[in-house]
Structure formats: C-alpha cells, structure tokens
C-alpha cells in the first residue's frame, strides 16, 4: 500500500480487524498443488504398493458373526462349532502348536486339540462327486459314460470349485497357514462344508447344496466340447453297428464358392437312407467330421436344442435313479470288429478314437 493513501487506510485497517478472518476458497489455478501431487506420486512408487492384508486385520471384523452369517446366507442352519471346524485347516493348527512350543508352553494345555476339516473335506468331496455323477447320468440318459466322466471332471475341477468358493465368501473365513490363499485350500473348505452338511443335516440337504451351487456351473457351457473324441466317424459307425442300423453314409447337401477361400460345404450323414446328422464346414473333410459329431449328439440327445437341466424349483420333486448305468463307448467299439465291416472306410482308425484321451483331459 502506497504512502499517499495511508491516512485514509488507517481507519479501514482498524475496521478490517473487527471482522473475523474467514477462509475463502480460492477459485484460481492452484499452483502448488501439482508439485505436491507429483511428490506424492513419486514417493508412492518408491515405497511400493499397499501390502496384501487379510480381511481380519481391519477393525470391522468379528469372526464368530462372520461364520454365523456365512451359514445363514447360504440358507443352512448349522451350529457355530461345526462351521468353525469347516474353516479350520491342519496347517493352522500346526502353526499354532509351533508358536506355543516356541513359547515353551505344553501343547496339551492349550486347547488346540480341535479337529481340522480334512475328514469332512474327504467325505464332502466323495458325496459331491457321487451326486454329480448320478445327476448327470440321469440328466443325459443316452450319453456315453466317458462323456459323463468328462463333464464331471470339469465340474469338480479346481478352477470351477474355487470360483464357486470365492463367490460364496469362503476365502476370508479360512484359518490356514498360507497367505495369499491357495486355490486348493478354498476347494477343500467348500468340500468340508458339504461334508458338514451331510453330517448334520443328512444326505438330502447336501445333495440340494450340490444341485444349487455346483451343477448350475454347466449353464452356458457346451457339454459336447468337454469330451474330446478324436475320430467321431469311427465311433458313429460302431454305435450304428451296435444298434443294428445301416452304416453311416456321408453325402454332400449343399456346397458354395468351392473354388474360393470362403468355400462352404454342408454334409449330411445318412443311415438307411435317413438323415441322422448334418453340419457345415470350411472344407468337405471338416464338414464330414462335424456332421459325424452332430449325428453323435443327436443319438446321445445332448444337442443344443435339448431341454434345460432340472435345477432349482424345477428339481424340487426330482427322483434320481442312483443305480443308473450309462453305455460305455469303449465297449461299443470293442464289439465292433473291423474285419467284418466292408462299407465303412474309417474302420482302420477306430482304435485311435481315444488317442491321448486316457487321462480324460479337460478341453
């Protein structure tokens, strides 16, 4: 402020002091802020990311309530002690025992003689596996046993079960040694829960659990792609021979743009002059293979247009035949001897059907 206006200003200054100082937010470009932000960013990079913490390390955590809610959320009425047993792994008990030993206290007095969930997990897995097989055999009565096994393998695979476990809120409740959690641990806990259900509530309730959580994972998946048949034409020939029907005859239905790269062939497979399967393909060979697969799908009644699986409300009064046995493709092939056949050209490769498929790898 210049000297010339100082006299007038004295009064103004005095008045200004009476007014309480208020922080008025400035609407200008905040020059210093970007500098601070840059410093913050760099320091964050040097420090590194936030460490992975278990949920229990946060303040809002009560293990008892969490475990109780877990049971209630899934609609199951189980005791807290059995639920806690479900989540307790052997590795956790071993770790605690070690700690106590290091401290010098005797192990017997610590109250750590609780059971872990290994037994429950084993029985749960057995039940789930068994029920899945029974359900699949009843859902696809005409499908081959090998196909049923491959769907079962997909459903009981670690990826699928771990995914289910994660979406049910299991990982946070698990008491085990390893952090970050291994997928197998989550799967074991899920199986232990099923085992606990069987123990407390009976088989029916456990079956319902499997039907409500594990089996719906088939929705949207192509079950025919799970079983890898290397030579579908050979298998089809064997099946038709077993059913005492005419051997398969592939015929060209339509072809288009055959001399170009974008050629398309539609091939139909006939047995006794009746169409049993058809499919398109980029070349005649591919179309023939796909048509054989289509014919097999129709024979096994696993085609895309099959009725939906009975789950949820539709399966309330479902009665499954536990002793159902599905036909085995291997048996059919063994019955079909290549020396007798004359019409089929693919007879030589029948024995190569399960090339590399003995381990029933997931597709």
């Amino acid at each position, binding site marked *: 402020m210049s000297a010339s206006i100082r006299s007038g200003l004295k009064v103004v200054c005095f008045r200004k002091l009476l007014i309480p100082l208020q922080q008025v937010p400035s609407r200008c470009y905040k020059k210093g802020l970007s500098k601070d932000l840059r410093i913050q960013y760099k320091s964050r990079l040097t420090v590194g990311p936030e460490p992975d913490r278990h949920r229990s390390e946060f303040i809002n955590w009560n293990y008892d309530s*969490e475990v109780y809610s877990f049971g209630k959320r899934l*609609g199951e009425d189980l005791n807290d002690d059995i639920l806690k047993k479900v989540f307790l792994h052997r590795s956790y008990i071993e770790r605690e025992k070690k700690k106590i030993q290091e401290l010098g206290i005797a192990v017997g007095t610590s109250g750590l003689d609780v059971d872990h969930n290994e037994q429950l997990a084993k029985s749960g897995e057995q039940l789930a596996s068994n029920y899945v097989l029974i359900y699949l055999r009843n859902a696809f009565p005409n499908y081959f046993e090998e196909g049923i096994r491959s769907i079962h393998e997909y459903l009981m695979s670690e990826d699928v079960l771990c995914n289910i476990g994660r979406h049910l809120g299991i990982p946070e409740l698990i008491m085990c040694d390893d952090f970050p959690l291994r997928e197998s641990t989550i799967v074991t806990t899920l199986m232990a829960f099923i085992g606990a259900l069987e123990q407390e509530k009976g088989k029916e309730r456990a079956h319902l659990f499997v*039907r409500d*959580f594990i089996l719906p994972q088939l929705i949207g998946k192509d079950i025919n792609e799970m079983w890898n048949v290397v030579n579908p034409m050979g298998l089809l020939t064997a099946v038709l021979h077993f059913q005492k029907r005419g051997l398969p005859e592939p015929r060209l239905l339509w072809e288009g743009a055959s001399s170009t790269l974008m050629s398309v062939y539609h091939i139909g497979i006939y047995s006794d002059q009746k169409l049993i399967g058809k499919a398109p393909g980029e070349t005649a060979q591919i179309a023939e293979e796909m048509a054989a697969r289509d014919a097999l799908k129709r024979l096994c009644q696993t085609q895309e247009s099959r009725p939906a699986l009975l789950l949820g409300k539709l399966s309330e009064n479902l009665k499954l035949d536990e002793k159902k046995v599905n036909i085995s493709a291997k048996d059919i092939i063994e019955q079909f001897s290549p020396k007798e056949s004359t019409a089929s050209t693919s007879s030589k490769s029948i024995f190569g059907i399960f090339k590399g498929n003995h381990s029933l790898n997931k597709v």
Partner: protein
Amino acid sequence: MSGGSIPSNFLKNVLNNGIGRYVCQMKRVTFKFCKQRNDSQGTRDFIENHLLDFTNAHPGVVVYIQPRNNRPSKIVAEYLNGRSEGIATTKMPQEEICQWLEHLRTRSGAEIVRLRKNHHTDNPSTQGVWHPFTNKDTSLNLAKFPDNDSYKVPSTVSTTDRLLEMGRKLRQEKLSEKS
C-alpha cells in the same frame, strides 16, 4: 468421444445366482458415523430404531457399527465378488438410510457401468441360426447352372394366345352352327 472411452459391460449374473437358490450378495455392511455431529443424526436414529429389524430379517449380512469422531457418516457394503460400495449418509434422515440400505442389499456387487445390452442369453437359438442354405432344397446341389427354364418370369397366357384361342372357339361354334 467413442464408446470405448467410457467403461461398459454386458449384463451378468454372479455365479448363476437365482437358478439354484438365491444368495444375498451383500456379506457385510459397516455404519460409520459420529456420535456428536448433526450430520449423523439420521444414522444414529436408524441404529436406534431400524437396525435390529434389519439384522433379524437378514441374518446372512454381518453388521458393523463404527463410531468415528468428527467424521462424516457413511455406509460401506461389501459384496461376495470382493467389491465394496459406499454411500455417504450425511444429513440423511433415517427413512432414507433404510432405503439406501435396501438398495445396497439387493445389488449384485457388480460395477455400475453402461450396459451394452439389457438382456443376455446363453442359448440364443434353439432351431439353429440361419445360413444361406436354410430354406433351400438339396436338389440345388445337383442343379447345373445356368438353368434358364426354371428361372424365367412365371409365364401367363399372352394376349396373342388369348386372341388365337378366341378365334378357334368362334370357328368351332360356326362349324357346329352350320352342322
């Protein structure tokens, strides 16, 4: 501005939820509020009056109450897919908090993004998707092109032929009259 700059997703259901049994996707909810501030009055009223009804009705949801001095109040909901959502409940009356809690409880935990399609189906076609040969006869396979006879404009009787026919009839009538 292209559609790729703003995140979008297709409609999804978490683990085929309703097909087997319905599982409430909200696993825990935390009420953070201040014991003194006016902003949190609604939250405090809610905890007094409505919270126990909620917990009794939904035992599958763990409720935590976290009083924090001089901090704004909020609700943080955690879902089974690992995500969490927060609602700032400052200056909200207790009824509104009830509504927001209900909103959070019935959510799937998925991120709110633009939905590319309001529907989703795993089996879009039961009769099979159309292909160029869907309604075509297989005799096309054997046909030799160009096959001119079958692809002409469907012929109708021409005027010339009609006149000739009329003439023939008249001649016949005349002949029959004569005889």
